């Protein structure tokens, strides 16, 4: 809507009338601005940071949630309810991607429990869920995939991944069929701890993938050499697992001072420093830290707001870490 849309015909332009109309137009601007999406203006320092999934352009918040260990609480109701609150906080703070796997014990079942509980409580925030899980079996994956659908209580998964490249040829075919049927939206493949990078590279070069998941953090940057540039070139979204190196980054650096200039990029603590480093890489789409602590979840989600470090700032962050 432009101001020129309100242009009056010449015969009606009289000074006092046009002054009143100009004033009325000016009053409409704040109201219109309030209706715009919150991430429209990148200069707003509370803006949610999202990145586009290359294969579709869909925007994804850059901080997701991993469920390795954190959601594997078995049948303990108290622990399940606590994890439900954790998930609610995640969604309330703008999170979307939640990543799990059949390998993670009861994590998928607990995820289904939490989603159902949030729904029964009348919560709406979980509607932003970007559901992500994996197939992990040497045999045909259909049964395991069906079980994951049942455990999560979903009719469609946003992203289905092949866990640690296990039986990837067979599972890739299965997932492609599911994608054609509309049961999954994106296909991916995962690895972690630097395993099987050569195999992953070959698959990325030769097979159609929407996502890859790999280990990337400020201490483990091996993927910067080949895999991240390849993902960028091929238009494959990248999920960074172990963005906090399994928590060991805090063990090394927690007692060291956060640099004063970290505030320039909106980092108030080490979690945000480490996470912003990861998600600011041009090839990274999303990072998936895992936590069981509400306070840590809030810290992690803070990395999804404000500005991301540019290349110069990333170099400065790296130099600082290497110097202390």
């Amino acid at each position, binding site marked *: 809507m432009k101001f020129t849309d309100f242009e009056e015909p010449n015969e009606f332009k009289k000074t006092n009338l046009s002054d009143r109309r100009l004033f009325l137009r000016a009053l409409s601007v704040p109201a219109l601005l309030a209706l715009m999406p919150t991430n429209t203006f990148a200069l707003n320092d509370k803006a949610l940071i999202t990145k586009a999934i290359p294969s579709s352009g869909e925007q994804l918040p850059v901080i997701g949630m991993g469920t390795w*260990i954190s959601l594997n609480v078995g049948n*303990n109701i108290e*622990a399940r309810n606590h994890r439900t609150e954790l998930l609610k906080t995640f969604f309330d703070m703008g999170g979307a991607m939640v990543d799990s796997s*059949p390998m993670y*014990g*009861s994590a998928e079942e607990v995820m289904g429990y939490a989603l159902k509980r949030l729904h029964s409580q009348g919560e709406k925030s979980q509607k932003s869920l970007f559901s992500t899980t994996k197939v*992990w079996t040497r045999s045909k994956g259909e049964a395991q995939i069906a079980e994951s659908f049942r455990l999560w209580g979903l009719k469609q998964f946003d992203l289905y991944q092949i866990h640690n490249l296990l039986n990837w040829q067979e599972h890739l075919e299965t997932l492609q069929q599911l994608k054609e049927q509309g049961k999954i939206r994106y296909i991916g493949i995962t690895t972690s701890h630097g395993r099987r990078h050569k195999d992953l590279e070959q698959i990325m070069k030769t097979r159609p993938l929407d996502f890859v998941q790999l280990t990337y953090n400020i201490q483990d940057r091996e993927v910067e050499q080949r895999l991240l540039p390849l993902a960028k070139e091929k238009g494959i979204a990248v999920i960074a697992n172990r963005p906090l190196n399994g928590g060991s980054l805090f063990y090394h650096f927690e007692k060291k001072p956060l640099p004063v200039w970290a505030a320039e990029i909106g980092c108030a603590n080490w979690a945000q420093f480490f996470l912003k480093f990861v998600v600011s890489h041009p090839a990274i789409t999303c990072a998936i830290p895992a936590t069981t602590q509400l306070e840590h979840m809030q810290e992690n989600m803070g990395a999804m707001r404000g500005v991301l470090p540019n290349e110069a700032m990333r170099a400065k962050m790296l130099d600082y870490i290497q110097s202390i």
Partner: protein
Amino acid sequence: MFELLQFSLLDMTPYNRQSWFNLVGEYNQSLWFIYPIAIVITLLLLSLLFKSSDKVSENKSVRWAFVILGVAWIWNGAVFHLQYFANLNWAAPWFGGMFLAQGCLILLIAFFMKSALWVSFASVRGRLAIFLLFIGLLVYPLSQLLEDRSFSQVEWFPLLPTPVLLVTIALVILLSSRWRYALVIIPILWGIISAAFALSLGLLEFYFIAGALLICLLHFLLTIFTIMHGKNGQK
């Protein structure tokens, strides 16, 4: 099994300490009615070991002690691993299989071994075994109260794997039959796996299992020394 080989220990421990404590607590609470039977079985085992009787020969006492042990392994495989631990750990079905195999092996050997006798309790082997038995039945469970566990989360023989492991190694060391070499293979393997899990979770269990495995190793070294000393003596 290929899945097991490509993953590290941390990959096979997809849960934290508290989840493990909660699992043990839920297991104990859901099987509370079994505990009186478990106590009777434990007392029976001790009676078979220490209380001589004219009615039951040592041969039969030894066999019945191993029957109790075999049933304990089968229970832990079929119930604990397959029905409870499988909720937390994808590898639990494999462990359940191991426990079932060991239980069946113990029962077979209990029935078919020709000579079923204990070594002298006053011997070095005997003392090591009694010490380990005391650890497995009492010290290890009670030590867990130092780990922020509630009483309901404590692991007791014969219903949980580590006390069963400790008692098994004790009885195997006590057994004079050569079948003890076959009986110790799976316990040693499980001991190494379990100790590794315990280490990754920071549990005291690691030290108990490591100690038991060292005692087991010491027992075999003593046996080898005795055999060699005997051969040298014959020369």
